[in-house]
Each structure stands twice: as C-alpha cells, then as structure tokens.
C-alpha cells in the first residue's frame, strides 16, 4: 500500500506547487540523490501536464519575437486615411492593432479626418467601418460630399453606386455615455470572438468621435471611479485592436494647462493608453491643417506635416 501511496502524494505535491515548477525542481534536485530518479520525473511531468492547459486559459499566449513579427506582417496592415500628408507621416496610415488618438482644439479638423478616413477605408474594400458618434458629429451628407469630390471623373450612375457601396460599409452608432460605450465595446468583442469573420464583414476601423466627451463628465472629483471607467475603456479598445486586428481612432479635445497653454484633455492616466497621438492645428481662414506627432511607437515625436481639408 505504501508503495502505491507515495507516487500519488508526490503528484499532488507537484500540482499544488505548480506555480513555480522551477523552484520545485530545484528543491527536488537538491535531494535528488535520495529520491528514486524515474519516479520523480514521472510524477512531475504528470503534474505539469494536468495543470498546464488550465494555466494557459488564464493568460494570453506566449509569443517570441519571430511569431510577433509574423502576426504583424500578416494581420496588422496600414489603413490609409486618404490624406496624403497624414499617411506619409505615419508611414502608411492608421495601423491595425493600434489605438490612434487625434487631439486638437475645436474646429481643428478632427471630425473631418474621422469622416474622411471612414469614407476612404470603406471605399478601398478594407472592410467595415464602425463610427461611434458621441456628439452628433457624424454627417452622411458630408461623406456624400467628400465621395462626390473624389469621384468627379465618374458618370452619374457609377457615382451613385459608389456612394451606396461606401455608405453601406459604414455603421454609425450614437452613444451618449461611457456605460453605453462599454456595452457596445463588450458586445463588439463578443461578436468578433464568436463569429467566423469572412472578407467584407470584418470590421477594420473603429472610430470614436469624440471619446473625451464621454470621459470628461465622469472624471474629476476625489473618487477613482472615473479613472477606472476611463482605463477600462482604454484596455478594451486596445484588446479589440490587438486581438481582432482593428484600427481604433479616437478624438480628444484640448484644455488649458499650466500657464494657459493648451494641452490634450483627459490627464496623465490617459496619456499612457494610446499608441499614437497626433495633434491637429488649423490656421484660421485657410483649409490647410498642420499635424504633428506627439507620441508614436517608433517615430520620434515632434515631426510635423501639412494637409489640405477640401471644401
């Protein structure tokens, strides 16, 4: 009986200390001389084999650099915004798998960039665009106008068809508070997880114009609940981007900082959420916009360029 009991008790010991197999191993190896060699390795392996699949459900998969690079090359493409200046500056456009933030004061062209990118991405067959509208800024008329300008060489009927195709690839939701946003994002994550994505139905660009109008009302005060909601929204956006190869574009406004100098809203905790942060400025009386990189994963901040917003 004793012979049967011993290996089993060892197996349970290795299960309970499964969290640190190496330290268990090292402890075991110290007294290895007194233990029967074959018995030990057998019970260890059995313990790991039992626990390992369970552990793997609880965390994301381990990847090495080569696998990461493969995933990036295969699944994370650039989505051109259609504005040449921005696309050149960003090395191709908005990157799938990343959260891009556009900051700028009122009427600096943030919404224009969002609408134009939506139209351009929907037009080029990259996939479906989801537009989460928090301040009634989505204007189908404006998109129609943009498409009209783009397809001036087309005949009347072809123009109509093109417009219809672009419009059918843009989905707009109106959202007026952070809870509704979290609802929509969780639902979207669920759908993406459980649906076999095929060709055109895949969402590739998620736009939130503007995220700051949802987040500012809950921030402030002594409590941390506002920041909890903000960080949760940030994490789920990055999760959507990373796991489902979606490019996320959000806009943020500017507030007066120290000395009256304008700075992006939402504070210090938000700063570490977006991958890329762009600032737009707009000269009064012209349609030329300046865009500068405040933060980028691999480009030095401070680079600037200009682009023209049409009519």
């Amino acid at each position, binding site marked *: 009986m004793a012979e049967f009991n011993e290996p089993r008790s060892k197996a349970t010991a290795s299960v309970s200390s*499964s*969290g*640190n*197999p*190496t*330290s268990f*191993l*090292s402890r075991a190896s110290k007294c290895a001389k007194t233990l029967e060699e074959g018995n030990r390795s057998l019970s260890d392996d059995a313990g*790991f084999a039992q626990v*390992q699949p369970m*552990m*793997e459900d*609880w*965390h*994301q*998969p*381990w*990847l*090495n*650099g*080569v696998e*990461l*690079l493969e*995933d*990036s090359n295969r699944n994370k493409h650039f989505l051109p915004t259609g504005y040449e200046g921005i696309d050149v500056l960003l090395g191709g456009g908005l990157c799938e798998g*990343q959260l891009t933030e556009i900051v700028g004061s009122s009427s600096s062209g943030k919404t224009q960039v969002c609408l134009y990118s939506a139209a351009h991405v929907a037009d080029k067959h990259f996939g479906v665009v989801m537009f989460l509208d928090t301040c009634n800024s989505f204007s189908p008329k404006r998109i129609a106008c943009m498409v009209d300008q783009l397809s001036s060489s087309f005949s009347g009927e072809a123009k109509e068809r093109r417009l219809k195709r672009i419009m059918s690839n843009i989905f707009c939701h109106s959202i007026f508070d952070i809870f509704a946003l979290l609802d929509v994002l969780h639902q979207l994550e669920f759908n993406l997880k459980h649906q076999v994505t095929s060709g055109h139905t895949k969402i590739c660009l998620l736009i939130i114009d503007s995220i700051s109008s949802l987040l500012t009302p809950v921030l*402030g005060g002594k409590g*941390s*609940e506002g*920041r*909890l909601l*903000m*960080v*949760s929204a940030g*994490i789920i956006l*990055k*999760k959507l981007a*990373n796991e489902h190869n979606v490019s996320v574009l959000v806009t943020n406004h500017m507030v*007066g900082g*120290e*000395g*009256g100098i304008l700075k992006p809203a939402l*504070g*210090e*905790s938000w*700063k*570490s959420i977006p*991958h890329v942060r762009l600032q737009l400025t707009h000269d009064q009386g012209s349609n030329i916009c300046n865009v500068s990189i*405040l*933060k980028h*994963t*691999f480009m*030095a*901040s*401070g*680079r600037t360029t200009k682009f023209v917003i049409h009519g």
Partner: protein
Amino acid sequence: MEENPRGWIHGDETAKAMLARVLTERPFLFLPPLHRVPLRVGNVVEIAGPSPSAKSQILLHAAVHCILPEEWKGIRFGGLERMVMYFDLDCRFDVLRLSQILKHRIMEAYKSANSTYWEDNGEYQKYDATEITQMCFCDDELFLACMRRFLYIRCYSSFEFLAALKAMHFHLQRESEALGVGLHFLMIDSIGAFYWIDRACQPMPIGGSKRKNLSLQNVAEAVVQEICKLLQTQPVLVLATKATIFGAGTSGNDAQRAFGKWCSERKMDSRTLSKEGEKLLYREYMPSAWQSFVTHRVRLQALDEIISDGQYGTLPTYTSQWVQPPLNIKDKFAVRDDGIFLIT
C-alpha cells in the same frame, strides 16, 4: 562535490573563471541612463516618468542588447546572447520598433566590420550603404535567432498578469532548453497599468475570510512573491517602467478652476507651482510591497528642447535622474535607432 568537500571550500577559482562569473552576474551595459549605477542580477530597477519620456525605448534598447550575440561569424556585436522576458501590461509594444532597432544594430556592426575591411584594402570608396543594407538583410539567420530569444506576453488585467507570472517558470524552462541560453532580463511595461482598476476593485469576501481578496495590495504582494521566486533560481535583472499617473497639479488644477485665478496670480506663482508640480508628478502610488521590492529607481522627464541630428532630422531630448541610489547628476539623452546617446 560530495567526494571532496575540503577541496570545494578551499578551491580558489582562476581569474578566467572569476571573470566569467562576474560578467554573467554583472554584464557590462552601456545604456544611458542605466550606466550610472552598477547593476547586477537580482536587482529590480524601476524606470519612472510621464508618458512619453522614452521609458519603453530604454527597455527595447536593453532587450536588443541582451538578445544580440557577442560574436557571430567573426563579427562583433557585443551582445549578451541571453533571453528577455517581456510582460506587456500597457499593450503598446510594437514589434516593428524592436525589429527596427535590432536591424539597425546588426547593420552598424556589419558596417564597422566592413569599413575596416575596405580600409585595409584601400578600397574605401567602394563601400556603399545600399550594398551593406542588402547584405545585412540577407542575414536572416542571425536576425531570427535574436528574435527567438525575445519572449513576450500581453496582459489585459492583473489576473492575467498573475497567471502569466505563475506560468512563467515552466515556459522559461522549456524555452531555455530549446534555445540553450538563460534568461537575463525580466521586463515589465508598465507596472502601474492596472492601478485604477485594482484600486476600485473591492470584491465581496467569499466564504468567510480565509480566502484572500483581489486588492491592490494583494496583487502587488503576489507579483513580488512570484518575481522573488524567479530571482532565487535564475540570474535575472528586473527592469520595470512606471508611468506617472498623477499629472502636474491634478489637485492644483481643480483649485484653480474653483477660484478662477487663471492668468493674474498664476504668473506670480509659476515658480512655486512648477516645483509643486514636480513633486506631484512623482507621487508614489504603488503599494508598499512593490516599493520595498525595488532596489534602484531612476526618474525620466521629457525636455522641451529638440536637437537636430543630420541623419534623423530632429530628436526630442530627455533627462534622467537616479533617485535610489540618490545621485546628484542629471543626464541628458536622446534616443536614436542605433542606441541611446548622452548629450553633453
């Protein structure tokens, strides 16, 4: 060992053996701002600073230094040829940046090796940048071997982070058996990523009070415990970034809003305010378990100054200051593709 304990106790090592041991424990690492203090395995370095202040860049440059070999086909790369384990809690890691830095380092090494070769042969003019580039990019073998030494995991919550730390030992053992090299860096970017979520998390006590609740303190304690276990068995240096999450004048701002003293009084107080801001900027928020675990602390800050660099256009500059151990030196540095450079 058991046969001759006396010999083991008295046996002095040779200078070569000692150098080999010291170099594994304390490899030479010229990477501003980490070059100021002697770092050895078992240390836990915290790199704190607002976003952006080149925190992640420092991690990536250190990672590339670690995964590069010392020498490859007769060309010196000066790396450590060890593994890096990277816990991405911010979920902002960009593999393209890592490969960009790595390719750059490989190219630099080839270039310097080749230029001496060409100089020796008196054919320096023939040296052509594009030729070198082509040559290096063909060398996929070295590049892939390096990239395989970079182990990465993404965590979306403290729970996933803890699970990953638990699973780390087994994964590490498997990888080091496969690759034949050990781990040198454990990187965490960034440690405070789930602060707001864990802080607000107050679950109901389940089934009496025997079970530990998920709270900020408990999570930090568990994280420290897991890393400690690793440090006991492996010669590892821990590098963790920490983003400042309390902006300059988080509380000050509210006060200003309330009293509406925007322009007039602000200018007068600007000196004291900026000092207060600096203090606020570095308000410690991690639980004490983590704070006491950290052995070295450096603070980074982005500067408004931009230096011009012929090859790369303009570069933003940063300062660094060691807080633990306290050093009275402020280093100014800039990050380029081929490394981090001090500005004097």
